[in-house]
């Protein structure tokens, strides 16, 4: 398995509170991604990064921000969590030389009450 960890693995929070999810990789891959998975929707891209401090929006970026201050870490922040952000969040990485193949982390299950 690719060296990707996500923390926390599970989180319960209340509406209106800030939440930060962390993705950490040991593969030195340049590209990192955050997806959310919801029943009937497959995975939808929230944000991605193509290098340190280089990020871009995905399909469902509203309400989310990201930061990447070093190659190995990609943070996803919900500034003010809403119940619609209850989901399973997956981080993925890929390498520029093989950009099309993504490797996924184990996921973070977030419940917003």
């Amino acid at each position, binding site marked *: 398995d690719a060296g*990707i960890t996500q923390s926390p693995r599970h989180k319960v929070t209340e509406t209106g509170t800030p939440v930060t999810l962390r993705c950490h990789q040991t593969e030195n891959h340049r*590209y990192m*991604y955050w*997806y959310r998975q919801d029943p*009937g*929707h*497959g*995975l*939808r*891209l929230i944000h*991605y990064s*193509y290098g340190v401090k280089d990020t*871009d*929006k*995905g*399909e469902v970026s509203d309400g989310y921000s990201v930061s990447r201050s070093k190659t190995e870490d990609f943070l996803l922040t919900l500034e003010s969590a809403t119940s619609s952000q209850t989901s399973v969040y*997956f981080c*993925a990485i*890929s390498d520029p030389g093989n*950009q*099309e*193949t*993504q*490797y*996924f*982390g*184990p*996921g973070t299950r977030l419940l917003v009450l």
Partner: protein
Amino acid sequence: AQSVTQLDSHVSVSEGTPVLLRCNYSSSYSPSLFWYVQHPNKGLQLLLKYTSAATLVKGINGFEAEFKKSETSFHLTKPSAHMSDAAEYFCVVRARYSSASKIIFGSGTRLSIRP
């Protein structure tokens, strides 16, 4: 623009019988196509990918898929199902050489295996 449709949300087969998971796609450009598998409470794992070489692609665990441009399909098959194949399967399309934001996932097919 790209899109992907997984034609069945749930497929159930008996152990030892063939598996067919159907995927149709559309893409404005030459596509790259992938199948990923997700076991319960796990992340996604790449099964196989098509990126313009042979149209019949072999993957892990005995799975294979055939790219049919005329039918815009990329169906996943396995000759004989095993209990460990029970999982969710995702078909993914990406226009080749496009940005990372152009990766589109299907809604998934849950595969159940009957003893």
